[in-house]
Every structure is written in structure tokens, then in C-alpha cells.
């Protein structure tokens, strides 16, 4: 399934105000991989995801999905394959009801209303907010909004799922549910998070970003235990891998 491959070559990006947020990143992600992207605040994670999705365009270098380069022309096709959950769910929800919001994507692909309904209800069920379907998104709590935002992307059944901090603002049960859901998503997934325990459990591979550059890229279980690397990048070894705080015994 080479068409689910995602390749980034020598990517550079400047914000209009001149801020150089991404400085020469290269990596490639194969079909079915689950990749965690971690880094301190302002490292450039969200910017990288925007570049992958073609919301922003690189000032140098390229992003390829399958064999297609992400350009203005190929966007419609690319976006049918990639689904992204934004860091701030408020940016993603704009319709009057949760139902309409989740249905927005499928309707744009001209599915018939029956199929749309099936997908919407299914997506809402998966994230566990079926009971909120007739509520207005702006009246929901932060975590409920996030769940709705995730559902709005799932309903599009993307090949590659991109999520910016999916577990932020979720209560432990909902966080678990999101993790289960991500685990059940068999295609490629790319997740940024500060929740390193989640990354540890969910992602086989981790890319560490520091000041717009890739500081490390490798197997999660090796990277996250590297205390020196983590510290240098403004991160910490996940709690699950630290010594027991009570008895001090090694895990």
C-alpha cells in the first residue's frame, strides 16, 4: 500500500512575520505505522502537522502523500486521505449541532444522507458522545468538544489520521477511550502530544523535535528512556518508565 506512505524531504517553513518554525526536516512514514511527535512548547509540532495537511505550504522542500506532492492542485485528493484533529477544537467546530458538524465532511463528499447518518452515528458512538448529537458545539465542555472534533474527522474515514494533542483536556476515562480508538485505527496515525505515557503506549515510533529540527527519530521504547535526550529537548522520561516514586525500585 505505497499510496499511504508519507514522505517529508528537507522541509523549511517561515511564518509571515519571519519566524523560522521548521528548519530542514526529513522523514518518511510507512503505511500502518503509528508515529508520535514530541517536543517542548513552541518546538514546531503543530506547524509540522499543518504543513503535512497542506494548510501551510513549505518555503522549501516538499511533502508527498503516496507518490503525490502536496500542492494547491492536489489538495482535494490529499485531504480526502488525511484527516486532522486540530489542537484547539473550537477551530474545528462551526456548525449548529454536533451532528451537523460531524456530517459536514461526509456531506462534502456527496454521500447520500443514509450513508452520512450511518457514518455520523458510528463516529459519535466510537468517541462515546452519541448523547450529545443534538447539542450545540459551543455549549459543550472542553473535553466533549475534543471528542466531537475527533468524531468529525473519523466520519470521513481517512487513510492517515493526524492528531494534534488528542488527549489534552480529557478526563482519564475519555483519554483511555481515545487511546483505544487510536489503537483500533489500523491505518497510519501521526500524533503529537505532551502526554508521553500515551505516546509510549500507543506509538511504535517517535520523532523528537527541538526548535524546528528533528533531534531524534527512532523506536519509542528506546527514545523515551533516553533521559539525557529528553532533558535536552525540554521533556521528561514518562512516569511509567521512571522509578517508583514510593519505594524507589526500578520499573
Amino acid at each position: 500500500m505505497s499510496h499511504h506512505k508519507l514522505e517529508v524531504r528537507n522541509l523549511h517553513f517561515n511564518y509571515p512575520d519571519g519566524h523560522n518554525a521548521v528548519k530542514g526536516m526529513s522523514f518518511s512514514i510507512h503505511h500502518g505505522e503509528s508515529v508520535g511527535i514530541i517536543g517542548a512548547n513552541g518546538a514546531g509540532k503543530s506547524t509540522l502537522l499543518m504543513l503535512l495537511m497542506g494548510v501551510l505550504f513549505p518555503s522549501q522542500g516538499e511533502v508527498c502523500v503516496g507518490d503525490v506532492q502536496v500542492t494547491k492542485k492536489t489538495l482535494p485528493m490529499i485531504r480526502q486521505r488525511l484527516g486532522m484533529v486540530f489542537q484547539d477544537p473550537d477551530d474545528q467546530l462551526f456548525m449548529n449541532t454536533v451532528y451537523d458538524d460531524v456530517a459536514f465532511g461526509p456531506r462534502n463528499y456527496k454521500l447520500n444522507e443514509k450513508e452520512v447518518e450511518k457514518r455520523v452515528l458510528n463516529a459519535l458512538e466510537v468517541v462515546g458522545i452519541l448523547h450529545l448529537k443534538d447539542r450545540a458545539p459551543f455549549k459543550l465542555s472542553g473535553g466533549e468538544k475534543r471528542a466531537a472534533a475527533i468524531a468529525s474527522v473519523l466520519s470521513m474515514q481517512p487513510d492517515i489520521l493526524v492528531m494534534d494533542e488528542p488527549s489534552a483536556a480529557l478526563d482519564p476515562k475519555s483519554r483511555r477511550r481515545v487511546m483505544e480508538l487510536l489503537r483500533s485505527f489500523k491505518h497510519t496515525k501521526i500524533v503529537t502530544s505532551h502526554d508521553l505515557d500515551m505516546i509510549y503506549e500507543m506509538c511504535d515510533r517517535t520523532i523528537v523535535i527541538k526548535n524546528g529540527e528533528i533531534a531524534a527519530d527512532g523506536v519509542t521504547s528506546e527514545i523515551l528512556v533516553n533521559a539525557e535526550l529528553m532533558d535536552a529537548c525540554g521533556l521528561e522520561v514518562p512516569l511509567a518508565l521512571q522509578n517508583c516514586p514510593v519505594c524507589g525500585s526500578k520499573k
Partner: protein
Amino acid sequence: MANIADSIYNMRLLDDLARQETVIHKLHPLVKLLTTVSYLTVVVSFGRYEVAGLLPLFFYPVMVLALAELPVKPILLRILLVSPFIIGIGILNPVFDQQTFVLAGREFSRGWVTFLSILLKSGLTVTAALLLIATTGMDRLAGALRILKVPRVFVLQLLLTYRYISVLMEEVARTLRAYSLRAPKQKGVHRSAWGSLAGQLLLRTFDRAQRIYEAMCLRGFSGEYHSGEINKICRWDWAYLGGWVVFFILARTYNLPLLIGSLLTGVIR
């Protein structure tokens, strides 16, 4: 700042109302649109000294209000919201139009009659428009416009403006909340902060609108707005439209109050 947050809820109230399922709500949006347009045409076509002729036209909003089971108070409140503008337009009429006539032994200036007429007409038209939105919803209304072959850009413009108003209001509410929490003893916003607050708001709403637009594009939005399927127009829909149009024409050509009055007195005699 509670009132701003309140008005956001109010903003979306019409949409909430539009989601009910009554006889009126189930009508085809195009039919409702056409009915409303013909109603507006009839109301506006009355001359400026006409008041009595307008009275039968109250029947329409009252009927819709009742059949659609809409709450009267919030609708009335919205009409009151525009009333200052209406009064502003009409208030000078009594000053300029000083001719008088005699009714029931007292002298009235014709200016007051035109003022009353303007008041009634605007009230009726605004009510009709509000009722249309509250029983149809903006999305389905846009669907109806598209059926009428109104160009896509215009419909989209309308829809996005409508969406963004609430986005803007939410942004305002948040900014003001942030402000008031750190300026607890003030009433309103201090003059010294107006500039930066307004500037911030502008930039933030631009930014927000941009990101929302991006989110829409990410989900396959390509300029066409799909708001779910709209059923075919059925016979009952046509009957609804026809019924009202006949009524409007009758109300326009005959003086119904007079007619009914004479009919009744005729019967009594």
C-alpha cells in the same frame, strides 16, 4: 459581561427553534421562502396612508407562530431590537406631513398615519423574516436559494456571514471575560483599553475565521455547502403556498375588515 454571553445563546436560538418538527417546520423550505416573499411584497405594496388594510395581514404571522409552536417572547424581543431603527426612519413624518384629517370628531395629522403605517409594515416584514428563519433554519434556507438558482457565491456569502457572526460574538465574549476577570472593579471596559481590545478582537477574529475556513477545507469543503438532503416538494406544500397567496391577494384587493363587518351586520339585519 453575562449579557454578551447571553446574546450568543440568543443568536443561535433561531437555529435551535428551526430544529423542531411541526407542520410548518416540515414544509419544504422553498415553499416557505416563496410564501414569505409574496407576503412581504403584499405588505410593502400598501400605500402610505393605509392602516386598516394591513390588519388582516396579521393573520399570517399569528398562524405561523401558533402552528410552528414557537415561543412568542423571544421573537417579540427580536422585533423590539430593530424597532429603534424603524422609529428612527418614521419619526420625522408627523413633522413634515402636517396635513390633518378628522376622525371621530378629533383632528389627526396625516403624518401620524404614515408613521403608524411604517411601523406596522416594518413590524410585519421583520416578523415574517424572523419566522422564516425560525421555522426553516439558515442552512435549509440556503438550500432553497440554490434551488432557485441563486449563484453559489451569494448563498455562500450569506451562510458564512451568518456563521461568522456567532464566531465573532464568541470571541468577543471570551476577550471581555478575560478582561473583566483581571479588572474586577470596573463597569464595562476602561477607555484606555478600548484601542488594544478592539485591535486584538479584530486580529483574533480574522485569525479564527481563517482557521475555521482551513478546518472546513480539510474536510473536503470546496465552495458548495451541503446541509443535508431536502425532500421533494409535495402536494401539501403547494397547497400551503397556494392558500396563503390567495389569502394575500384577497387581503390586498378587498378591504376584508369592512367586508366581514358588512357581512356580519347584513346577517344580523
